[in-house]
């Protein structure tokens, strides 16, 4: 039977009992219960019939007794409590072990754990609710009634809990219930009835508020659906996700996100800077003070590429903006603050989305559970394309095989192989770094050449074409070198795919950063000394870079994807269809966004270009993807990659762009004769001038004060930095503490599992070694049976430890009552949900007695340990039959506990036994525990009814403490 039920588990004893399930259900399965329980009966029934077919083994018979015995409990010991309904659907699983605990938890108010309790109720309520549609007709009428009542109760609890919430939270809570729609609807209806009843009782004020909330809810729904209608590219996203999966979708989501940034930036810049200028100054003029305004500027076509000439006289660049105050609208301030606010908002939104992403995807993420993740979490339910599904299957297969072989492979690596790997890594890094430096140097010299050869005075067409050289070279480098880097992957061997991607990312970022820093160096150092209106010149270079970047992106998807597709399918089938490289493509996006950020100061309408670029790019990439590419073979953890991309976008790219813009605004002298900041020492002094003007205006003195004392004071920034550092330090410490706590709790779970399996194994051993006790027990039970229902013995799961425990306790109480030794207190009901804890306590108590030789304590039935009592009771039965001591003469903890217990309890027997030598660590734990509870014990001796049975909620904590102490003492001892 055991083998039937437990298949291939490593420890049959552990699974053999219902205790586990009961324990789980009671303790942890709170939020999520099984609304589809109605699927269960088949299985249970199946099992039951199977059990029956095999026939009852002795344990089963014993079990049957325990079921009956169990039914006594509500009658005497806890008779006030409502009859508990069945947990399982099998006809004879009418009472299960968990329910008494549930009842206990209800009967003993535990203030500390009230929150948990309600959650538990809800959990149970849900389960019961789910049983509701098909209440077992095989139940006796009495039980059916009980079930009904119980269910009503629990539903009521759930309803009350929900009713206490606000309307919005309530709806959210209903939605989040793991139930079927029907059940949700039922609950919703009940709640509505309740609230309508309430509102009838109360004033029309409540009615009014109800209506308002209803109305706002409806408005919310409308807003939601309107938002959905406005959602960009929903269908496209769906089809991409359906064909290529989530990891490729990341790229498009990122693209969309950047597009939103640019739309916002464009709106802000256009609205606050460009429109006022266009409205009040119809002819944006590069400079009124400069006389060399060419009158013959016409649109020649090349400007679209170079961005010079005609564009110079439009609002495209910094130079065309006025420094005047247009009808009370200070252009200088508008320009400065628009850009400043935009950059700050970008930074905030980046930090925010970074933190959210990081929290969701990184903090909790654990790289350790790789296989489990691969098997159970990687399947992309959004993939709907047949080909893609097939491919994914193959990929998963390959990945699983790889991960299996990888572990084997890594152990086999010899030193020389390792050295070889390191050598290759070193070589690749060296090569990639020198390539990046070389590229940067190349860009430097090309720029040098351009500046030297261009003659600003006579601007010819050739000169204009020469300006295209730098953007061409830069874009070419950006296109070719990353492809070259990807080739490295062929030689390099990384232990994980993730490391490989990270290496690739770092190299690419390094390349782009070095190129950008060379360009920025030029823009910041060389260009300002050159022409008259240097900001516009920088703006033009940025325009060219953005444009060329776009062109090369298109070329890249043509050559990189289309051509290699053609080659892969037609010419060299060995190469296969190219994969869509998410990382490289995202980096391209990041790079072009960085250009747009740097350009925001020099060319306020650059975001408009960026919007166009991204819009076209989206469709281009989509088409290229569907026609040329296959989904990446190894899907990395897409969500984590997204976090990394956002992080990269923030640092170094956004931070770099921000510092460039800030440096320009604070340190560089704006050109003399064009732009909003002409004739100022730096852009920021526009604010100084404004504040200076404010001094004369009455009523705005406080602004000046704040400006002088806060904004301009170093101490203020110093303090801010200090505070932030302190907060970071505190949070860091808290995080570390929590990590440690998580680690310990995890260890605790593992230990608990081990303890449990150990105990259950012992218990089963005992059961096996005592095959004859069943008949005996039956006999004894027969005398005090109160319910003589006939149980068909076939259906009960064997060795239900919890039930046994309860039965045993019952029995114990009975006998104690019979012997009436002293005032017998009602056993303190432990609402702790873990029989294991009870068992541990039991052992501890037993040990205590074993060592201290205080047999009399044991007459106290309130030792609150179900399992121990079970043992004891069974022991006693055993004794009464055999009257011999040495049945359990083993040196295991459980046996010792039992012996101690038995010895203590047997009033007729003298204490003949000597304590057995403590032979295992478990005993050490118990001893430590006992010592730790020395105080409790003393108290316990003096006032037996107030036993140290821990309240349920703290049982685990106590256990943890005990373990800790045990560990310490164990360490000290040895």
């Amino acid at each position, binding site marked *: 039977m055991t083998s039937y039920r437990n298949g291939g*588990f490593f*420890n049959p004893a*552990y*699974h053999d009992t219902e205790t586990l399930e009961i324990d*789980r259900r009671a303790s942890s*399965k709170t*939020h*999520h219960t*099984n609304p*589809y329980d109605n699927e*269960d009966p088949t299985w249970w029934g199946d099992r039951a019939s199977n059990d029956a077919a095999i026939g009852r083994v002795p344990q089963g018979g014993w079990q049957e007794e325990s079921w009956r015995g169990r039914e006594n409990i509500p009658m005497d010991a806890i008779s006030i409590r409502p009859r508990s309904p069945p947990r399982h659907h099998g006809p004879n699983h009418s009472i299960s072990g968990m329910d008494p605990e549930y009842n206990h938890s209800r009967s003993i108010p535990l203030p500390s754990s009230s929150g948990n309790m309600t959650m538990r109720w809800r959990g149970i309520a849900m389960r019961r609710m789910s049983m509701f549609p098909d209440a077992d007709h095989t139940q006796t009428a009495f039980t059916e009634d009980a079930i009904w009542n119980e269910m009503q109760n629990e539903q009521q609890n759930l309803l009350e809990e929900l009713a206490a919430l606000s309307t919005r939270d309530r*709806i959210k809570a*209903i*939605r*989040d219930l*793991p139930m*079927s*729609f*029907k059940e*949700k*609807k039922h609950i919703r209806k009940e709640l509505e009835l309740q609230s309508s009843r309430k509102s009838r009782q109360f004033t029309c004020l409540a009615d009014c508020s109800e209506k308002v909330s209803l109305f706002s809810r409806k408005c919310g729904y409308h807003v939601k*659906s309107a938002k959905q209608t406005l959602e960009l590219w929903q269908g496209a996203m769906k089809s991409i996700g*359906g064909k290529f999966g*989530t990891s490729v979708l990341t790229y498009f989501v990122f693209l969309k996100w950047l597009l939103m940034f640019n739309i916002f930036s464009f709106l802000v810049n256009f609205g606050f800077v460009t429109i006022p200028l266009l409205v009040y100054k119809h002819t944006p003029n590069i400079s009124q003070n400069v006389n060399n305004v060419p009158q013959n500027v016409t649109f020649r076509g090349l400007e679209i590429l170079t961005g010079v000439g005609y564009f110079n006289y439009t609002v495209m660049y910094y130079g065309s903006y006025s420094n005047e105050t247009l009808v009370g609208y200070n252009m200088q301030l508008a320009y400065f603050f628009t850009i400043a606010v935009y950059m700050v908002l970008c930074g905030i939104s980046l930090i925010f989305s970074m933190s959210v992403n990081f929290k*969701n*995807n*990184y903090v*909790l993420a654990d790289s350790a*559970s*790789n*296989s*489990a*993740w691969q*098997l*159970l*979490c*990687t*399947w*992309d*339910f*959004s993939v*709907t394309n*047949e080909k893609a*599904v097939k491919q994914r*299957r*193959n990929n*998963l*297969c390959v990945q*699983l095989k790889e991960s*299996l072989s990888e572990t084997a492979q890594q152990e086999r690596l010899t030193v020389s192989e390792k050295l070889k790997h390191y050598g290759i890594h070193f070589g690749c890094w060296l090569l990639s770094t020198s390539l990046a430096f070389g590229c940067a140097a190349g860009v430097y010299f090309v720029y040098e050449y351009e500046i030297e050869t261009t003659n600003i005075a006579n601007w010819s067409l050739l000169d204009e074409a020469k300006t295209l050289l730098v953007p061409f070279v830069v874009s070419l480098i950006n296109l070719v070198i990353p492809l070259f880097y990807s080739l490295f992957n062929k030689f390099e061997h990384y232990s994980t795919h993730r490391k490989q991607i990270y290496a690739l990312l770092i190299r690419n970022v390094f390349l782009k950063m070095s190129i950008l820093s060379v360009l920025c160096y030029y823009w910041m150092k060389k260009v300002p000394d050159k022409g008259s209106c240097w900001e516009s010149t920088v703006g033009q270079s940025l325009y060219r870079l953005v444009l060329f970047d776009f062109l090369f992106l298109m070329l890249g998807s043509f050559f990189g994807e289309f051509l290699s597709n053609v080659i892969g399918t037609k010419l060299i089938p060995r190469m296969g269809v190219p994969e869509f490289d998410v990382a490289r493509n995202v980096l391209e996006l990041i790079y072009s966004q960085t250009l747009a950020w740097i350009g925001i100061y020099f060319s306020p309408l650059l975001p408009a270009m960026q919007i166009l670029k991204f819009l076209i790019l989206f469709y281009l990439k989509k088409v290229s993807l569907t026609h040329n590419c296959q989904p990446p073979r190894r899907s990395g*953890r*897409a*969500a*984590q990659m997204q976090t990394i991309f956002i992080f990269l976008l923030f640092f170094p790219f956004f931070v770099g762009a921000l510092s460039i813009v800030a440096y320009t605004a604070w340190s560089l002298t704006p050109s003399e004769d064009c732009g909003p900041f002409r004739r100022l020492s730096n852009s920021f002094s526009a604010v100084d001038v404004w504040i200076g003007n404010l001094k004369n205006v009455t009523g705005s003195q406080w602004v000046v004060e704040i400006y002088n004392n806060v904004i301009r004071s170093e101490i203020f920034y110093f303090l801010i930095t200090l505070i932030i550092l302190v907060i970071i330090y505190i949070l860091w410490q808290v995080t570390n503490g929590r990590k440690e706590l998580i680690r310990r709790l995890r260890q605790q*779970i*593992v230990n*608990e*599992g081990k303890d*449990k*399996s150990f105990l259950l194994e012992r218990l089963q051993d005992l059961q096996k070694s005592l095959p004859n006790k069943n008949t005996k027990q039956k006999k004894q039970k027969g005398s005090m049976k109160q319910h003589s229902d006939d149980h068909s013995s076939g259906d009960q799961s064997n060795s239900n430890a919890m039930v046994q425990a309860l039965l045993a306790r019952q029995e114990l109480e009975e006998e104690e009552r019979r012997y009436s030794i002293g005032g017998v207190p009602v056993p303190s009901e432990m609402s702790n949900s873990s029989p294991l804890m009870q068992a541990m306590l039991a052992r501890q108590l037993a040990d205590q007695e074993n060592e201290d030789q205080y047999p009399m304590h044991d007459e106290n039935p309130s030792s609150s340990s179900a399992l121990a009592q079970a043992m004891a009771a069974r022991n006693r039965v055993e004794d009464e039959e055999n009257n011999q001591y040495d049945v359990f003469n083993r040196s295991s903890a459980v046996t010792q506990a039992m012996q101690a217990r038995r010895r203590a309890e047997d009033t007729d027997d003298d204490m003949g036994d000597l304590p057995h030598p403590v032979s295992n660590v478990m005993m050490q734990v118990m001893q430590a525990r006992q010592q730790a509870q020395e105080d409790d014990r003393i108290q316990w001796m003096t006032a037996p009814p107030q036993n140290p049975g821990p309240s349920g909620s703290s049982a685990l904590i106590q256990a943890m403490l005990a373990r800790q102490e045990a560990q310490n003492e164990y360490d000290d001892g040895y």
Partner: protein
Amino acid sequence: MGNKQTIFTAQQLDAYQDCTYFTRKEILRLFYRYRDLAPQLVPLDYTNHPDVKLPYELIGSMPELKDNPFRQRIAEVFSEDGEGNMTLDDFLDMFSVLSEMAPRDLKAYYAFKIYDFNNDDFICKSDLEKTLNKLTRNELTEDEVRMVCEKVIDEADLDNDGRLSLEDFQHMIVRAPDFLSTFHIRI
């Protein structure tokens, strides 16, 4: 096409909106999707709660589910009769849980049910083997299947009981952030 009002009453729509993550528009869209599966079976008037159930064969033929290796399990888990035959309510329920808005815990709960092939509230080895075979189409050898399953249990089983409980599963899901985006069917 009928007016919105003739398909559902306002109360019905409200109930649907309150109990699923969908807006009115999406509910109607899903209704039409549902109806398109069997126009002759599904009436255009749902105001009097007609008792219509589409058989699994039709549900499983939806483009969103057609190629999903777990389509049958999904339909079984979300259908009231446990055999994959779905009412409109079940249908909405299914896509609500699989929608983007559903919280992680709810998704994890149903994903657990989907992977729990024998409905014993635990993902045991046989469930994992079934999952693996569904995912890889029996392409792995028996040995490999066994090794993968052992590894999975070894990694995800916190309490060492040799099988994954809902808690183990949820714990794993929390650490696998991709789950939210992959356990998602766009409508």
